């Protein structure tokens, strides 16, 4: 008999379009909105805000001590759900009952101030996350050693390397001991070592019998940490199932639109501007969109996008991931130094960046294509780690005389030499 930790009933959140990303009003707009009756009808229509439901009719219960995954594409409503659960924003309708203290990790290092030392930031950040001073004092040493910043604890964090900064930020949050922990994508940052440590800490938390809600694009983390997963799409709860089933459903549904993914306006975050993703496609030599590629033949991945303004240093690239969410490789369109020079600035317009994937690279199986558009160290305009999924067909690949599954995500065609070294065997 388990107890309910979170009860969500018909939850809905409506955003006025444009409101979501901090479109504050000016006094003039409000006044003209309020006294706008005299305006011409078409002008008045433009003033009426159009709204979208970021979350609609979502109901579920979470039992105490369970670890629940939440997956969904960008803009599916995951973050909105977590924001409501952690009381950052109010729902428009519905009801949530939460039993116990909620710790939310929607971001690590919230409230960190660069001028303050590591020690000072631990106390500040801890207090922001809802810890008592005595609690922080009791865990101080543990936090410092988890973050491995002992020698720099009295140095302002602006002098920290980004790795140290992240470790410290995560360490504070990880030592928060709420009954319910809500985590959003914090593991997407940091190096592999750090991620491993975070995942370890997360599973410890779960073992202690606390309830965890875990949002991630990292399918292998979801598979490792959670037993059950919610799949959310366009604000609706599509499925709640054991994680293996849910991940499979998520990766195979909606992602493959016959080898092509077109981004809908509501899937593009406002901070992407002036970059606007249009589509990513899997193409054969004749420019035909295809659903599956063959190991033995080259194929093409094409990202189509628009720039509403010129962008300096833009790079558009793809990731290839396995269906378990592990990265196979990353490649950007300006990796080549010559291209990097030539496209140091891209003017406004519509572009297609296309890459040829050579034969004998990927193994058979299912792969996911992620898309990233960014200016290095300046801004990530757009990022979609699950833009498209496709199958690789092993026909013609090396070693297919044995109808077995080969381990590993790559299937290179390698040259072997076999020599007999015992003098001819006589």
């Amino acid at each position: 008999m388990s107890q309910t930790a979170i009860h969500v009933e018909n939850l809905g959140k409506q955003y006025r379009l444009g409101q979501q990303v901090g479109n504050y009003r000016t006094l003039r707009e409000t006044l003209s909105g309020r006294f706008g009756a005299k305006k011409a009808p078409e002008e008045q229509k433009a003033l009426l805000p159009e709204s979208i439901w970021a979350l609609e009719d979502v109901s579920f219960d979470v039992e105490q001590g369970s670890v629940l995954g939440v997956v969904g594409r960008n803009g599916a409503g995951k973050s909105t759900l977590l924001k409501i659960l952690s009381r950052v924003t109010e729902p428009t309708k519905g009801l949530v009952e939460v039993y116990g203290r909620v710790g939310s990790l929607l971001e690590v290092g919230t409230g960190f101030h660069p001028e303050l030392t590591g020690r000072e930031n631990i106390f500040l950040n801890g207090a922001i996350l809802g810890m008592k001073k005595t609690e922080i004092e009791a865990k101080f040493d543990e936090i410092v050693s988890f973050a491995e910043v002992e020698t720099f604890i009295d140095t302002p964090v602006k002098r920290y390397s980004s790795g140290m900064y992240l470790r410290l930020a995560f360490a504070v949050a990880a030592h928060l001991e709420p009954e319910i922990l809500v985590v959003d994508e914090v593991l997407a940052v940091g190096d592999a070592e750090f991620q491993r440590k975070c995942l370890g800490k997360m599973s410890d938390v779960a073992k202690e019998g606390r309830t965890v809600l875990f949002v991630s694009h990292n399918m292998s983390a979801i598979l490792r940490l959670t037993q059950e997963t919610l799949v959310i799409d366009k604000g609706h709860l599509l499925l709640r199932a054991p994680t293996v089933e849910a991940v499979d459903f998520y990766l195979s549904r909606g992602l493959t639109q016959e080898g092509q993914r077109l981004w809908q306006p509501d899937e593009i975050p406002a901070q992407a501007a002036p970059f606007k993703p249009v589509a990513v496609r899997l193409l054969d030599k004749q420019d035909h969109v295809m659903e599956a590629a063959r190991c033995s033949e080259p194929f093409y991945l094409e990202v189509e996008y628009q720039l509403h303004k010129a962008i300096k240093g833009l790079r558009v690239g793809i990731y290839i991931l396995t269906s378990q969410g592990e990265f196979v490789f990353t490649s950007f369109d300006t990796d080549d130094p010559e291209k990097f020079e030539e496209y140091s600035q891209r003017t406004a317009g519509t572009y297609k960046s296309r890459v040829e994937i050579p034969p004998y690279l990927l193994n058979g199986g299912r792969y996911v294509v992620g898309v990233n558009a960014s200016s290095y160290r300046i801004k990530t305009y757009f990022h979609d780690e699950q833009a498209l999924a496709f199958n690789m067909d092993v026909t013609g690949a090396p070693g297919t005389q044995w109808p077995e599954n080969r381990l590993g995500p790559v299937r290179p065609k390698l040259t072997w030499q076999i020599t007999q070294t015992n003098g001819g065997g006589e």
Partner: protein
Amino acid sequence: MVSGKQSVEERSVTRTEARKIIIRPTSGWAALNLRDLWVYRELVYFMTWRDLKVRYKQTALGAAWAILQPFLTMVVFSIFFGNLAGVPSDGVPYPIFSYTALIPWTLFSKALQDASRSLVNSSHMITKVYFPRMILPLASVLAGIVDFLIAFVVLLAMMAFYHVVPTANIWTIPLFLILALITATGVSLWLSALNVLYRDINYVLPFLTQFWMYITPIAYPSSMVPEKWRLLYAVNPMTGVVEGFRWALLGSGEAPGMMTLVSTLVAIVLLVSGMFYFKRMERLFADMV
């Protein structure tokens, strides 16, 4: 907390400590939920401490700013109003007369300046973590107390220099300081909430502060205001504060009376209405900031 769910009735013992939080849409005027503010009282302390620490680390002159601003204003006032214009100062040396008023005034105007931007400046926190939002403007106001104390020590030094002996009523200074803080918090709550919704506040504020300074008896004594207008004049709570400071320290001006009462009532109205307005707008902050 008692749970209404049938399935957990028997075993709710293990969860005696778990608070049940209900999240649902609210609309209109909401309850203030001061208990929540109390639960997070340590955060008020940490945010105030952060504001101070960062300011003193980032500025070259650090604590000197706390003194320079009212002090230089006092110098200018003394030259132009005290000497050249011959504004009366109730028999007290004009520098002391104006500086006594400038200390609580600086506390007030600085609080408005910092607090009105506090929510917008902390937008990254507001969109990521829950805590009572009121803490942000509150911490900005409270951080001003340290500056106030430093400037106050300078006042005592100046009084010694001019051989002005504080009156026996000096013990009432904390009360007038509290009146100044209530006023500052009330106005700050209004301004900070409005600033999230309408960024015009950034442009309104300098004008508002300047205007407010003219209607407060800083450069001139309130005795210049005709008797019959005094109560209306005291509707500005900072009038009550400044008059109180002068009375308690210098023995000039009027003893606390009807004017102080009017100022106090207005200050309380500002605070309570500010809290309710803030609470009403709070639900929009995360989506609009």
